[in-house]
């Protein structure tokens, strides 16, 4: 049985690798189909054709696409993602610090989402049909439906500009993460709360809950010892996928709160037709999302003995 688990993990790793290379190829081709010559953009309106061609050739842009792609992949394996056109630095040096900023933001937002989401879902489920339930579900519906930029600006207005409790934007210390984490985490908290609620309500109707009560467990013991683990199974998948989503850059939140993360870097790269930089950020996001899904799968395996066999 242990052997089949290892095999399962290896198989999933292989799928993950295929997915990453596939997305890299797709991004590579798509970016070259975008209208507008990056070199022309780089050099400005008044560059002559000869200079454009000379620079293109020095960047390797005149070679056939498959050759360019192979070179890119070989470089990426060595940690070399090329040099940014607009910022004049190696892409790997730009992505590193940006990813650290994004990581902190993602962790802070995930903390908000998980704590608030699970707590709201749990209380709504055990107080099903009461005012508490409706209040929490309304709160989570707001989180799911309100656009992030709107929430961000409301938070900035109330807590920074009006109450002066927290900085408006930028990260000077940890307090800078509070508002963006709430803005970013609220939506995730909303969907987690709704899933936790429905999952707990469903699990509490299962026969084994009756069995647990027939053993003499109190209601709260039944909830914690028998319902919670089973109810969290679908939630784990959602949480892992949301987290990889958060890690791959919150474009709007990072822009509104001036956080130099992956999302903001991607926006800069798009604006500047900075192909190597955009490829770098996209590849990183793909990697993070694929790994996040892999982690969700493996975590699910650990938590649910029923899927372990066929892993």
């Amino acid at each position, binding site marked *: 049985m242990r052997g089949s688990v290892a095999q399962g993990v290896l198989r999933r790793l292989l799928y993950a690798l295929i997915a990453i290379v596939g997305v890299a190829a797709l991004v590579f081709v798509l970016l070259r189909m975008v209208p507008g010559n990056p070199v022309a953009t780089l050099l400005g309106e008044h560059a002559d054709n000869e200079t454009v061609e000379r620079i293109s050739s020095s960047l390797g842009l005149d070679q056939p696409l498959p050759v360019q792609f192979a070179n890119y992949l070989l470089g990426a394996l060595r940690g070399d993602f090329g040099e940014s056109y607009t910022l004049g630095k190696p892409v790997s040096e730009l992505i590193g610090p940006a990813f650290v900023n994004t990581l902190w933001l993602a962790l802070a937002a995930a903390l908000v989402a998980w704590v608030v989401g699970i707590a709201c879902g749990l209380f709504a489920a055990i107080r099903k049909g009461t005012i508490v339930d409706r209040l929490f579900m309304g709160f989570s519906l707001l989180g799911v439906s309100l656009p992030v930029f709107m929430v961000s600006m409301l938070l900035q207005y109330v807590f920074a500009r009006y109450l002066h409790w927290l900085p408006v934007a930028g990260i000077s210390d940890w307090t800078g993460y509070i508002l963006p984490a709430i803005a970013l985490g609220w939506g995730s908290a909303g969907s987690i709360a709704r899933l936790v609620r429905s999952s707990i309500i469903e699990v509490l109707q299962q*026969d*084994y809950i009756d*069995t*647990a*009560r*027939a053993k*003499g467990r109190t209601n709260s013991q039944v909830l914690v010892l028998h319902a919670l683990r089973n109810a969290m199974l679908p939630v784990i998948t959602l949480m892992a996928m949301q987290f990889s989503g958060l890690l791959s850059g919150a474009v709007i939140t990072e822009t509104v709160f001036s956080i130099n993360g992956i999302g903001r870097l991607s926006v800069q790269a798009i604006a500047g037709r900075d192909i190597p930089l955009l490829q770098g950020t996209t590849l990183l996001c793909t990697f993070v999302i694929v790994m996040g899904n892999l982690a969700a799968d493996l975590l699910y395996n650990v938590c*649910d003995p029923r899927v372990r066999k066929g892993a």
Partner: protein
Amino acid sequence: MTQSTLEVSHLYTSFFSERGEIKAVQDVSMRIGKGQVVGVVGESGCGKSMVARSIMGLIKKPGKIVSGSILLDGQELTSLGENELCKIRGKDVSMVFQEPMTSLNPTMRVGLQVQEVVSIHENVSKEEARQRTLAILSAVGIPEVKERYNAYPHELSGGLRQRVMIAMAMVMRPRLLIADEPTTALDATVEAQIIALLRQLADNGTSVLIISHNLGVIAQLADHVYVMYAGHVVESASVFELFDNPLHPYTLGLLRAVSSLRSQSKVLQTIPGIVPNLAHLPVGCSFAPRCDKCMARCTSTQPELVAVGSGHEVRCHLTKRVDAQ
């Protein structure tokens, strides 16, 4: 008369839904002596599971016990609070459910699910709880208990899972074991094994309340039988008396449906019609609309449960009239 382990008197249990009161159990009285096996038989929805849940104090909302008394060795259960009931459930009264496939927690090792009962009710070391769990698992006929202890429910067959359920219900040596359709989800050979196991428990002094729609199971296990219809006990007798001398038209119908399977008759005998809606019961006898011996007063007056012999009671106007002669 021997001391009764369980004495239910005039129990009424209802569900209060938006469409009105649904009377699931009405005026049900039953007693179970020590080491006695008592069967409750009836169609789906006749209230037999609700009697079991009322005894366990496990009626789901919006249902509740409206009136009546449930005495366990003389202790009144209906007036107990949730915390006191938790101390009794699993220790003094335990229950085996119908579906062994879904009645075990899928993410918990079966050994721990049995062991849990010991640690809830007794302050013993983990090792002692484990030893008692292993002992009860082998007592209910589970082979290779040490391996099975660590198994998850999905790794066991239906029969083994039901044995785990019975082990769970038996580990504290309760005074009363309630088995709600314990063999319905199992195939015939496994059913026979489970019946033998329950019989053995009763012989060791545990009182058993067995609920089934299967008269065959009841005949093999029970000493005394209650036939339920639409929330009422319509007939109650010792198992031999019931099969020899059934008096209520509903009991007759049930027995005819079984015996028509045994005889070479080409047509399956059935009871026409369906169980009435418990929210809108007929004014008179609940069985009147389906009864082939229905008389005028059956549709206007509810019959009383009357004794017709030693331990034999029937709720039917027909019987009363025969008695009067």
